[in-house]
């Protein structure tokens, strides 16, 4: 079974040379730490920066340079700043190649819910609805089950949706799965995790074809 770092490490393998990538808050942010350093990648943050770098050294924080999680950051050579409409123009116009974000629920038809728990948590969707509605290549990073042990990979989402039919791939602590017309196609198992464990943790339709390899990290 993977921890959050492991999930980020596995997703980093999906980041290819020449990609512009938008990383969501939480596990997705960690992905930047594990991208191969022999490829050229630029990270976009929807508050208006392309070419995000690591956190600044202590004492070098700049209140005017933050990421979408409101954390102080630095920029890499070649970076640029822009306004919010331009930023979402990049996203809506499909200039960003890969979007990695977290989710509370994903359904077997690719629906995603990650912004609201009625009566409990209403913080808003931020840029998530724009991202999922426009990106062609969306990877969800999340735990396979919630804190109560219930599956987050469902037949239908129960929470208010963020987007419909948009998720392509999911990387969890247990598995890598692809959304296909009939449900969640199991691609890889996390190290030491059995197919039985994945079956039990998946409420939606799980498709298992042939031998399912263990992830390489």
């Amino acid at each position, binding site marked *: 079974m993977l921890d959050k770092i492991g999930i980020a490490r596995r997703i980093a393998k999906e980041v290819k040379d020449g990609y512009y990538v938008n990383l969501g808050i939480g596990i997705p942010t960690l992905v930047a730490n594990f991208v191969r350093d022999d490829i050229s990648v630029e990270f976009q943050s929807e508050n208006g920066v392309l070419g995000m770098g690591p956190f600044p050294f202590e004492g070098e924080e700049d209140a005017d340079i933050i990421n979408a999680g409101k954390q102080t950051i630095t920029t890499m050579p070649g970076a640029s700043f822009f*306004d919010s409409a331009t930023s979402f123009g990049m996203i809506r116009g499909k200039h960003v190649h890969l979007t990695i974000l977290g989710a509370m629920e994903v359904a077997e038809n690719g629906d995603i819910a990650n912004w609201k728990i009625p009566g409990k948590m*209403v*913080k*808003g969707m931020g840029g998530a609805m724009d991202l999922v509605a426009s990106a062609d290549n969306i990877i969800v990073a999340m735990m396979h089950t919630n804190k109560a042990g219930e599956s987050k990979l469902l037949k239908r989402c129960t929470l208010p949706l963020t987007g419909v039919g948009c998720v392509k791939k999911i990387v969890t602590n247990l598995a890598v799965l692809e959304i296909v017309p009939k449900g969640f196609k199991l691609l890889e198992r996390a190290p030491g995790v059995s197919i039985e464990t994945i079956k039990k943790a998946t409420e939606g339709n799980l498709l298992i074809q042939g031998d399912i390899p263990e992830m390489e990290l």
Partner: protein
Amino acid sequence: MIRKTVKDSREALQGVEDGMTFMLGGFGLCGIPENAISELVRLEIKNITCISNNAGVDDFGLGLLLQKHQIKKMISSYVGENDEFERQMLSGELEVELTPQGTLAEKCKAAQSGFPAFYTPAGYGTEVAEGKETREFNGKMHVLEYAYSADFAFVKAWKGDEAGNLIFKGTARNFNPCMCGAAKITVAEVEELLPAGSLDPNEIHIPGIFVQRIFQGKQYEKRIEQRTVRPRN
């Protein structure tokens, strides 16, 4: 040259009244019009509608207006990090309209550029699209969103000149340029107000035509919400 300078925030906010709709720039606490917000608190304007990506934190930014119950309605994309906001929203004291971030930016931009409405794929199939016109383009569904209409836009820039030209810094740019010229009156506060001719016309982000009043801001706190650093070794 058409001069846009006013003396201070008091002069800049002349004409604001109860019940008006304001646009306020900023992402989190980054690039917010601190001086305009302070003046709105001092004026005790009530029943206002604020179009702003976020709602500040409990004791800073728009949180200061929330504390004094000056806001009737918030139009935002993300309102976490503010307990008083959540309390007022759950108790029904505060009306909240949550809008996808890119749509919010574009609704400002549309008002700036004279588009009454536009189609976006964001929010299709979700509760955000409920009751809205939808239409298919190239096999994909889109939602019709209308331009905002506001009385004042309050923006914050890094440098500006007497003609109202603006240059922003870093990610403090965010929604600020999109809101310039998107309301009846745009008020820009700047860290550095310069004589006309001091800024290179090639480097202007927002031309002064979109700004009606500009003033030299004071005592910027520029609070950091999440101070994240890495070790030196």
